[in-house]
């Protein structure tokens, strides 16, 4: 190292004013209007999913055959499908499918992936290599294809879609957790803790896991959008929820045949998917900006 650069490190920089982490998070997160918009959409989604039976104007599963294929009107805001079922009510119940699949899948994939990445990164060596190569091999399958194959093997049904999507998205978490663990375990507090006699398990759970959470939370939010898209794709193909259950992707497919005369049947659920995925992406972006320590001082 040259003398010039050494003298540079000695120079004191003005310390940035101390701001509480939480205050900065709030300021950065709520700064952008679009993030706020995403947040509102998500709150609406959760509300709709939770209170679907009270909000929906009609029974989503049983239609009135006399009212088959109605155009949007005061009575049916978004019209009715071939079986005379109210499209709006089915959309509202479809929100339940979306939320359930999204959250259960993320829960499964994030916990499995984090355990794999943490173990591989912390212990390294042969264990690490085998785990991470296995993860690589899962990464070689396109997510939708892997989910399709798993759903085919396990059989249709919403719980199998969750398992399939969970397995297909696990590698992402494993990769991120692996990278985080590799860098976190080099920290002085880990060495200190080990010197004080902490076991591997204690270090992993008390030091590495909590410190890796912010990036994982961002990944979870962004992944939720992808999972919802994949679930919609699978249900569009006819895999997943069984009729008369409502799922947005399946509604797009059902409306496909009446595209020329009743485009709203396909357009409305597609728009719902898009809006929700957009909301998750925006909130994810906002969380990333607010949680990334490298942006501290910049934002």
């Amino acid at each position: 190292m040259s003398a010039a650069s050494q003298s540079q490190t000695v120079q004191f920089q003005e310390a940035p004013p101390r701001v509480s982490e939480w205050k900065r998070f709030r300021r950065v997160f709520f700064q952008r209007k679009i993030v706020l918009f995403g947040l509102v959409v998500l709150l609406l989604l959760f509300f709709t999913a939770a209170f679907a039976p009270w909000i929906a104007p009609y029974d989503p599963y049983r239609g009135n055959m006399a009212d088959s294929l109605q155009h949007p009107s005061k009575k049916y805001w978004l019209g009715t499908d071939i079986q005379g079922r109210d499209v709006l009510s089915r959309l509202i119940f479809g929100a339940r499918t979306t939320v359930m699949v999204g959250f259960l899948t993320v829960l499964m994939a994030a916990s499995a992936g984090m355990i794999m990445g943490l173990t591989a990164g912390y212990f390294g060596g042969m264990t690490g290599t085998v785990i991470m190569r296995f993860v690589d091999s899962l990464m070689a399958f396109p997510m939708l294809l892997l989910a399709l194959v798993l759903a085919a093997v396990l059989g249709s049904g919403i719980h199998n879609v969750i398992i399939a999507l969970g397995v297909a998205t696990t590698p992402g978490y494993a990769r991120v957790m692996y990278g985080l663990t590799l860098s976190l375990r080099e920290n002085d507090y880990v060495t200190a803790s080990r010197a004080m006699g902490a076991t591997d398990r204690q270090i992993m759970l008390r030091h590495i896991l909590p410190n890796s959470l912010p990036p994982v939370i961002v990944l979870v939010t962004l992944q939720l959008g992808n999972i919802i898209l994949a679930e919609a794709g699978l249900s569009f193909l006819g895999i997943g929820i069984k009729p008369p259950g409502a799922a947005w992707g399946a509604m797009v497919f059902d409306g496909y045949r009446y595209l020329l005369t009743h485009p709203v049947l396909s357009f409305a659920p597609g728009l719902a998917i898009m809006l929700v995925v957009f909301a998750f992406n925006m909130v994810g972006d906002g969380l990333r900006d607010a949680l990334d320590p490298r942006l501290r001082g910049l934002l």
Partner: protein
Amino acid sequence: MTAYIVRRLVMAVFVLFMVTLVVFFVMRLIPGDPLIIFLGQSAQLGSMSAEELEHLRKEYGLDKPIVVQYVNWLRDITSGNLGTSIYYREKVGKLLMERFPITLHIGLTAYVVANGLGVLLGLLAAVRRGTWIDAVATTFANVGITIPVFWLGLLLMYVLGLKLGWLPISGYTSPFQNFWLSMKQIIMPVACLSVTGLAVIARQTRSSMLEVIRQDYIRTAWSKGLGERLVIMRHALKNSLIPVITLMGIGLGLVFGGSVLVETVFAIPGVGRLLVSSVFAKDYVVIQSGTLIIASIIVMINLIVDIAYGWLDPRIRYT
């Protein structure tokens, strides 16, 4: 560099081996008798006598230990024998050979469009940051990663096919048969398949360009009086493409995954549609081989991407 390539090659072979393990054992997850894989129907099994079952088990080698079955299967597929489809009653190799060119034609076109336009869009957005170009590109990218591929297909079909009548709404024609019809038919599928990749690439290019533009060497390049084209193309773009290239490796998966949906929407007789119909027909032999081949292609492409990566960025070779 040679050591790096060799290391990557060994890794790729190992991953490929894991891929075969995953495919083989996932197929064994099918509840019930593994004979279902070759018969496709559990109902058929129920009506068979114990002797017939025993005979079939011998015929398909299912009486042997699972490791031996795996090795036999591996030997078969590496010698090009992919088995016989239950549903189509044809050699799986032949079925796939007929369909792969179609999927690759549309898929690779989409791949090139996504990467080319994506980099261009991201570049423009970064260089003209804060202008309307940036606003349009960023909005487009945000919509692109959000829109369900199959739904975009329906929208395009509705507007361009049904309402305006500009493009044929479905089907596939080989470009060697009727070039213009083929071109017109693939416009919408290519648009759908490329949109997600395009958006992802544009976002990444934009943000890494913005990162690079702040660097000292870019200021140096400006201050020694280089023109904008030279600064951007030679100094900034080259360096900002490194993270973009990683995404290009992932993008191929998007294309293959998306082809499952797009080929269904536009009634294109490619591998994606074959796999979907095989899933419904419980034609496990086709699913097994199709998935294996797609995964292998992706492993190979990622190997190439990795090597390109090491070639572009010497720092990576030594870690």
